[in-house]
């Protein structure tokens, strides 16, 4: 499952709706349904990141329809996806190829993980209630204007009756989200934001109905529907923000379709990872990720374990070697005997570590929850004391006292408060989304604003995991020419980086014959009658250095080491500088060897670094910093970072990270560029300030209006004015975010 951010039980700003436990459980149910459906008629979904125009739609749809077996294809340009209905023999690979044929990059998405339906249904439901509330607010408001401008006697009663017939059904229909959530929190013994809201709606409607029936002067129908409308608007904004984040996060997860190539009866069969059984043989091609834990039975290769351990140097893997799910096979094809698959694999055991760290994470109380905690009791207290006072003062005039207490509830009702947080969060996360940051968790922005220490992982986070040679110029010309000739024949990442750099330097390859790759060791060939080798230090008869390097031996003298440094992620330097400028301590913790970490820390100017850290040590460091009273931002991508990501106050991971790491983090970096992290911190601080300002604005309105209501001077007109003015002010203030 992709989105497992801490569920926010807050009652304000839509917590009660989108944070229901069923929504979290829904994706798995949808997945089961989708898998069941897959057997009949295939429904394939591809992501089309480049689609942007009218021509793209028709080009892609025509290309898909041209594939034999495809029944229909429909591009959704908003989501940048194409969904294809096809007979079961059509595979996603065919469609990806068809899209590539007309010039569009396409990626298969796992339809089971795209549970858009449940969120969609909720969103439509809210929008429907919002539409109804809007309709009746406008009508009731027009009728109320007549009353405010002095309609008398029968005319006023008529207007009140018509208002009642519009407003009461609206409150019953549109107010349901509040009533349900209020009932839930009452049963849990709490006073959430929705309890005073519901009370105000019910009290205002019933007292107005009574007044209308008794031909009274004041009816609050307009206030009741306006309250419903503005609060629903806040709910809807909040829901939209969450839905966008959820669908983007689901798309990231759905991009990794978990499959394994299993050897069954001598045949290679591609199956889902959940169907792999312990003891089976699994084939992993070069460049592929290990789908399961296993022991190598056939083939030699080099294995990149950086996502698990942070080591940037590939290790040798041959028969008898143990591999874990998530590692990348670099050079030769491997056949594994499965020792653990699915839930038991080390990938999943690491996920348990995350669960432990998450339960240890102190539950963050959002600003809205903190505001609600003192706000709700205060509102009830004010309303009831007004009721009591006027009962005593008027000598038991129940009608007057209830009127006053309803007016107090309406005036204090958190129209502006309900909008204050969702408006700011929607505005801020929309801005960050355009910059390439996906905010997965509702309170992540607030937490990001409090951060004072930033801990970075190295491999794959600050660096791209793509090496570049550092000492090409130190070697004599012929040596580099031979190295280029050998490296050009391999698809090993070090060899490819070496060949690319040498070609860029204008070096021509030497004439080397009989080149062959020895998987797991290197490449060898014949040069001027001598055997030349490029590969591991041991294979070349030399000592390995403590930095990433490949070794060239030409038969004479010591092997030459071509050293590599990881390429920095674009914007990494700027991000570190930005964070420093904003007064944060920056630390680096990596599972890689000391030399590589020291080198990188020097390049970025980070003094505080740790090398060779185990996953548990990373989490321990974060916990220790937290214990010292720091708020830690963890930025990491590997499986070895997941526990630390979950333990940190707030965490960021790049989109290239493993699913487990993305699930554990609150914010996902969608693009390559890391410079946006500095921006994100700035925007989050700004938005927290806006939220506080908005609370201040609505408090100010209350300070002015509540005394009026308490002494019985709040007319429906005053209530309507206070409500709409404060709501509009907070929305405008939210939009000021830059």
């Amino acid at each position, binding site marked *: 499952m992709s989105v497992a951010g801490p569920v926010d039980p807050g009652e304000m700003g839509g917590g009660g709706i989108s944070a229901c436990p069923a929504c979290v459980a829904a994706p798995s149910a949808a997945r089961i349904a989708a898998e069941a459906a897959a057997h009949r008629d295939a429904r394939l979904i591809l992501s089309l990141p480049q689609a942007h125009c009218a021509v793209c*739609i028709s080009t892609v749809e025509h290309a898909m329809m041209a594939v034999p077996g495809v029944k229909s*294809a*429909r591009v959704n340009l*908003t989501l940048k996806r194409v969904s294809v209905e096809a007979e079961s023999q059509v595979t996603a690979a065919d469609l990806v190829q068809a899209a590539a044929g007309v010039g569009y990059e396409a990626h298969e998405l796992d339809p089971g993980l795209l549970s858009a339906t449940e969120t969609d249904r909720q969103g439509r439901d809210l929008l429907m209630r919002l539409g109804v509330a809007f309709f009746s607010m406008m009508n009731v408001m027009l009728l109320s204007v007549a009353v405010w401008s002095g309609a008398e006697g029968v005319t006023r009663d008529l207007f009140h009756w018509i208002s009642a017939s519009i407003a009461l059904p609206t409150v019953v229909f549109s107010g349901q989200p509040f009533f349900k959530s209020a009932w839930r929190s009452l049963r849990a013994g709490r006073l959430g934001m929705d309890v005073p809201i519901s009370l105000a709606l019910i009290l205002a409607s019933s007292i107005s109905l009574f007044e209308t029936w008794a031909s009274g002067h004041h009816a609050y129908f307009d206030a009741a529907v306006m309250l419903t409308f503005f609060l629903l608007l806040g709910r809807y904004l909040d829901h939209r923000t969450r839905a966008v984040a959820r669908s983007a996060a689901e798309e990231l997860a759905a991009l990794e379709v978990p499959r394994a190539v299993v050897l069954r009866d001598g045949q290679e069969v591609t199956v889902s990872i959940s169907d792999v059984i312990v003891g089976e043989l699994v084939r992993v091609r070069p460049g592929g990720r290990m789908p399961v834990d296993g022991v190598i039975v056939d083939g030699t290769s080099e294995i990149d374990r950086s996502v698990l351990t942070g080591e940037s140097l590939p290790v040798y893997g041959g028969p008898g070697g143990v591999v874990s799910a998530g590692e990348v096979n670099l050079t030769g094809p491997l056949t594994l005997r499965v020792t653990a698959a699915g839930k038991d694999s080390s990938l999943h055991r690491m996920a348990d570590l995350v669960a432990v760290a998450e339960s240890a994470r102190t539950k963050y109380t959002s600003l809205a929850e903190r505001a609600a905690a003192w706000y709700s009791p205060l509102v009830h207290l004010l309303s009831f004391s007004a009721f009591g006072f006027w009962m005593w003062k008027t000598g038991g005039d129940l009608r007057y006292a209830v009127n006053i207490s309803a007016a107090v509830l309406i005036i204090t009702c958190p129209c502006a408060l309900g909008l204050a947080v969702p408006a700011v969060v929607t505005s801020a996360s929309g801005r960050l989304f355009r910059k390439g940051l996906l905010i997965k968790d509702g309170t992540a922005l607030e937490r990001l604003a409090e951060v004072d220490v930033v801990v970075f992982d190295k491999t794959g986070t600050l660096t791209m995991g793509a090496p570049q040679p550092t000492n090409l110029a130190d070697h004599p010309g012929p040596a580099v020419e031979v190295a280029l000739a050998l490296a050009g024949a391999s698809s090993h990442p070090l060899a490819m980086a070496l060949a690319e750099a040498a070609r860029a330097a204008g070096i021509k390859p030497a004439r080397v014959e009989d080149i062959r790759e020895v998987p797991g060791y290197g490449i060898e060939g014949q040069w001027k009658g001598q055997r030349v080798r490029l590969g591991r230090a041991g294979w070349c008869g030399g000592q390995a250095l403590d930095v990433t390097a490949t070794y060239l031996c030409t038969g004479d003298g010591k092997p030459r080491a071509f050293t590599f440094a990881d390429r920095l992620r674009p914007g990494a330097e700027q991000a570190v500088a930005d964070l420093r400028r904003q007064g944060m301590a920056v630390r680096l913790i990596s599972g890689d060897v000391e030399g590589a970490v020291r080198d990188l820390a020097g390049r970025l100017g980070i003094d505080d670094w740790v090398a060779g850290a185990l996953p548990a040590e990373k989490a321990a460091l974060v916990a220790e910093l937290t214990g010292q009273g720091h708020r830690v931002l963890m930025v990491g991508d590997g499986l070895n970072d997941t526990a630390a990501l979950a333990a940190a106050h707030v965490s960021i991971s790049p989109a290239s990270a493993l699913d487990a790491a993305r699930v554990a983090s609150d914010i996902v970096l969608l693009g390559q560029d890391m410079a946006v992290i500095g921006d994100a911190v700035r925007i989050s601080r700004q938005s927290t300030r806006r939220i506080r300002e908005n609370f201040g604005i609505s408090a100010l309105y209350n300070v002015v209006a509540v005394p009026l209501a308490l002494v019985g001077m709040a007319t429906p007109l005053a209530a309507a004015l206070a409500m709409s003015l404060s709501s509009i002010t907070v929305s405008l203030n939210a939009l000021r975010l830059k």
Partner: protein
Amino acid sequence: MEILGILIPVSLFLGGIGLLAFVWAMKTRQFDDPEGDANRILTKDYDDHPKP
């Protein structure tokens, strides 16, 4: 003031039409792909696969 007896029902009726149109648009999922719909009117090929 008798005119109110006509005007108020008329205005409510017109507003109601708007509300029904909105409900219908919601039910038929007209808001699923606003960007795509805006672009689709520019394509020349006849859209013979409208959304279900």
